[in-house]
Structures are given as C-alpha cells and as structure tokens.
C-alpha cells in the first residue's frame, strides 16, 4: 500500500502527528464523532476535508448520509493545493478527473430497501450490513488475493442519530430504539478493528435529548471532538470571542496500541471559517513554533493508521499560528 505521510510539526500548544501507514502494522481503526454544531455546516465541512484527503491520497471512500444524496456530497469536494502537502481551498471544487479516479461507495437510506428491524441495531442494521459487505468484498479485511495492492477505506457517516435515519434518539428522552445508535457504533468499531479502514462520524449532539447517550457515543469512539458554534448563542456578541466562529473541544484523544498518546499542551481551541480555509487556532495565546525530528514523534501514533479526527499542519504567521485542518 502506498504510504500516506503527513509532515509532523509540534508546536508549543498543539501536537501534530506524523502518520506512517505500513502494511504490517496497519490494523488500526478510528471512530470519531464530531459533534455537530447547531446548523451542521461546520461538521459537514470537516467531513468533506476528511473525504478530500481520501481522494488526494487515493483511498477508497464510503459515504453514508440520510439527508443529502451522498453522490452530491462527494461532488462538492474541496480543491487541493500543494502548499503544505495537502491543503484545501474551500472556494473551489475538486477536479472531476481526480474524483472519478477514486472508487466510491455510497449509502442513502431512501434508495436502500429496508428489511424488518429485528435486531438491536434498529434502523442502522442496513448500514452496518452494507459496510461489512464493502469491507469484505474489497478485501479491506485481508480477504481476497494475496497479490492485490492493499488500500485504506475511508468512511464518512453523516448525522447519525438524526430522525432521518429512522432513529428517535433526537426527539425522545426514552427512545424506543434506545440502544440502536450505540450498538451500531460498537459494531462499527469492531469492523474497523479488523480492517484497513478509518471512519469519521458526525452526530447532532444538540438534538439528542438524553445526554447520557452522548457520553456513551464519545466513549465508544477512539477520538472525539465537539464543535460549539457561536452563531446561535450569546457568545456571538462577547468581545472575547469576536475573532472566532466557535470553539473546538477535544473530548477524547485516542490511545490505540499504547498506554498514552502524546497530549497537547493546550486544549483551548477555537475555529474560524475563512473564505478559503477552515482554521483552528489556540485561543488568544502566543504560540512558539517548534519542529521535532521524526524519531521523537510518539510511537503509539505512528503505529495507528489515522487516529485523530484532525491532525493539523501548523503555519506560523507572526505570533499567531494557524492550523489548517487537513482531515485524516
């Protein structure tokens, strides 16, 4: 398989990681829910970054969405530039040739035949079955011919838990299919653990009535990030937050195959959507820009395929660092 390497830069406040994918150690998996902001716009953008990185790296894509046609979502992929490796320009669309070169799988519930929901997976049984089938058919679980060039499958699952999936966890405190979402995430985690794949899941946290469910969703993931947008809160007028569009909370840092992962100095992050990029910054602090030689990068992260929802490339401009989210 081709190695996907990202330059690693470690700053005073944010750890960016080098991820080297090698065949022999590549069994890792990531399920990372990005809590959706009030209007879903930012989390959808992060999902697109994630998928764009897959296109540029030549990975296979799997996209499931109940609201928008997944084919349309992939069409609006971000154009890449080569400034720092993989950076994306939000104002442009990706070259269609590049998109067509990538093998894609989609799942759109209105177009799928629904079987009777007999298991504890509830409305997600079809989705899990579809993912399992793709993983097995394309040989991501090690099945298939020995000579086949191995690749990585990137799964983007949009807005799980929303009513459009047939789930009532977003409009009932005691939902009938109360454990469908968590059971699905558990099974997804299991599938990813036995295959060369990584998944990014977005969840509309602001709609889920029972907050305990959200806690369980976070614990079932390897990495979890929450986006708190200011657009509908009183923080919008607070001068402290005038430079940003929202806050980014790191709820969970993965530590797969290791006791502990490299911990960031500062988890106080905010984001801003600019015309051409989505940037994540350490809030109101001066950042020192330090590069580490490759050997010092945390071993545990090197072993994993794509552990974090985002890894960031840092670029210093004066005394402020901008982090360009490149997905993983």
């Amino acid at each position, binding site marked *: 398989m081709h190695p996907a390497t990202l330059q690693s830069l470690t700053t005073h406040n944010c750890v960016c990681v080098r991820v080297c994918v090698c065949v022999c150690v590549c*069994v890792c998996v990531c399920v990372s829910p990005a809590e959706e902001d009030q209007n879903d716009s930012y989390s959808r953008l992060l999902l697109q970054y994630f998928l764009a990185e897959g296109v540029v790296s030549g990975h296979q894509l799997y996209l499931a969405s109940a609201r928008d046609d997944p084919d349309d979502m992939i069409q609006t992929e971000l154009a890449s530039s080569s400034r720092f490796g993989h950076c994306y320009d939000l104002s442009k669309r990706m070259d269609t040739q590049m998109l067509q070169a990538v093998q894609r799988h989609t799942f759109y519930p209105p177009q799928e035949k629904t079987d009777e929901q007999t*298991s*504890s*997976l509830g409305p997600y*049984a079809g989705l*899990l*079955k579809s993912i*399992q089938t793709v993983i097995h058919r394309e040989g991501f679980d090690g099945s298939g011919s020995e000579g086949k060039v191995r690749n990585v499958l990137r799964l983007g699952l949009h807005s799980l838990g929303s009513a459009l999936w047939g789930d009532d966890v977003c409009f009932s405190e005691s939902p009938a299919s*109360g*454990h469908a979402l*968590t*059971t699905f995430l*558990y*099974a997804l*985690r*299991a*599938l990813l*653990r*036995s295959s060369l794949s990584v998944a990014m899941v977005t969840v509309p946290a602001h709609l889920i009535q029972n*907050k*305990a469910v*959200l*806690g*369980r969703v976070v*614990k*079932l993931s390897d990495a979890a990030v929450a986006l708190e947008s200011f657009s509908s809160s009183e923080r919008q007028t607070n001068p402290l937050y005038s430079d940003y569009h929202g806050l980014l909370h790191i709820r969970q840092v993965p*530590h*797969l*195959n*290791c*006791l*502990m992962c490299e*911990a*960031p*100095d500062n*988890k106080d992050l905010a984001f801003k959507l600019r015309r051409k990029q989505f940037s994540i910054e350490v809030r109101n602090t001066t950042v020192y820009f330090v590069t580490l030689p490759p050997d010092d990068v*945390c*071993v*545990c992260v090197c*072993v994993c395929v794509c552990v974090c929802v985002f890894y960031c490339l840092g670029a210093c401009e004066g005394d402020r660092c901008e982090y360009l989210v490149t997905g993983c």
Partner: protein
Amino acid sequence: MFPELNSILSSSPENFTEGEFILLSDRQADASFLIHHYLTFYLRARCRVCFLGLVQSFSHYSVVSQRLGVNLTQAKEKGQLVFLEALKASPGVLLGDESSDKTAALDYLRSPCPELRGLYEFVWNSLSRAGGEDAAESWGPPVLIIDDLSVLLSLGVSAGAILDFTHYCQATICSQLQGSMIALVRCDDEEYDEDEESSNYLLKALSHQCSLSLRVEGLSTGYCRDIHGQVEIWWRGRGMKNQRKIFQYKVHDKGASFFAPGTSRAVL
C-alpha cells in the same frame, strides 16, 4: 505492571491478597491504563487469567503488554490466559451471519432481553479447571478481568443483569475459588446520568460489593499536560482497614507514575 502502584497497594506478584474484587472506575478520565497494570501483574504472578475483551481487540493489549514486559500470545498458548474477543465477534452476531460465533458467551447481543448467563458460564468454564487435567504447569489462583462493564449498558443490557453477573462471578471466583476479580466501569458526570440504567448507578452498587476501589478522575482545575488526573484508592475493609488515599498520576509510554497531590515534577 506499575511498580509505584504496587508499593502504594503493598502488593507484588509474589505476595498479593487473594479473593479480592477490585473495582476500577473513571469519570472525565480514562482508567484503562489500570487494566493493563492488572493484566500484566496477574500474569507475572502466574495466575490463570480470564480476560473479557469487550472494547478492544487482543492485539491492543498484546502490544501494550509487550512494552510492560509480558507476552500475551505466549500466555495464551500456554493456557495461562483465556481471552474472549467479544468486540471483534460482535458484528457477525448482531447481523446474524451464518459464520458468526455461536457460543452462548455472546448471548447478550442476541436475545430480545439481553442477559449475561452465557457469559458467566464462559467465565466459569475458563477458570474452574484450576491447573487443568492436562496442564504441565499448575497456575495460581484464578483471576477474571473485565474491560469494561459499562459498555454492556450501551448494548442494551440492564444494570440489574450486570449486577447479577458480577454477583455470580464474585461468589464463584472470589469466595469459592479464592481468586480475584477486576472490573472497569466508565462513568459520566452525575447530572447527565442519574437514572437506574446508568453507569453511575452501576458504580454505586458495585462499590458496595468490592473490596478495593480505584477511582480515576480528571483534575477539578481542568486539563493539565503533566498531571493526567487523580486516583482515589479506597481499601474497603472493616474498622482500621477502611481507608482512602488520593494520588495524582501521569501515564507514560511504558508505565505510570503516582505521586502525592501537589508533588508532580512539573509543579515542584
């Protein structure tokens, strides 16, 4: 295993208390590093270990244990370690695949009213044959490690069923076989998780059953890179033996260090 934790608990692979039910829990932190401690500790102590891997795969524990100096694959081959790969087997069972694991141990994924009788019988079969009729080596007391119990709540198992399961395991392993049992329960903030099917409820009930409790929490002052959290150790004995102590900790690549609050190297 972590030498500093051994000295705090006054135990070592050569000399440890038998018949213990150790409860690990966390809130706003991750106590799974303690699972690795106990797994390597009891394997070093030459105990027969049954490990219920409900949230991670075998390879994860194997890689970490390697760094801590214990070879899990070898332990499994020798018959010292019985590992239930419950996580990896779950999609097949949930989707009703024909090729899936048919054992009763995973019944909690199958039946309309999930229960853990099959899982208990798996544990009993793994640990009741102490030494084994055909084993060339005789092992020490049996040990059950569960990582983790709270995920069963996410799968629809009731708190009552989980408590029945732990009660049966404790009666069999700790009282009858004089072995030990270690279980991890992961909790959220109490304001979000108060009802009878919550992990907080489970934790409260299990705290009464256990003989030693290690509660891991994040720092009340917020995130700190050099101090990952604090551990409250509660020896639940009678009279003078009932005591609590708090330590702060930091997890490294190959272990963890524990220190009295305020004495972290980053602070001093």
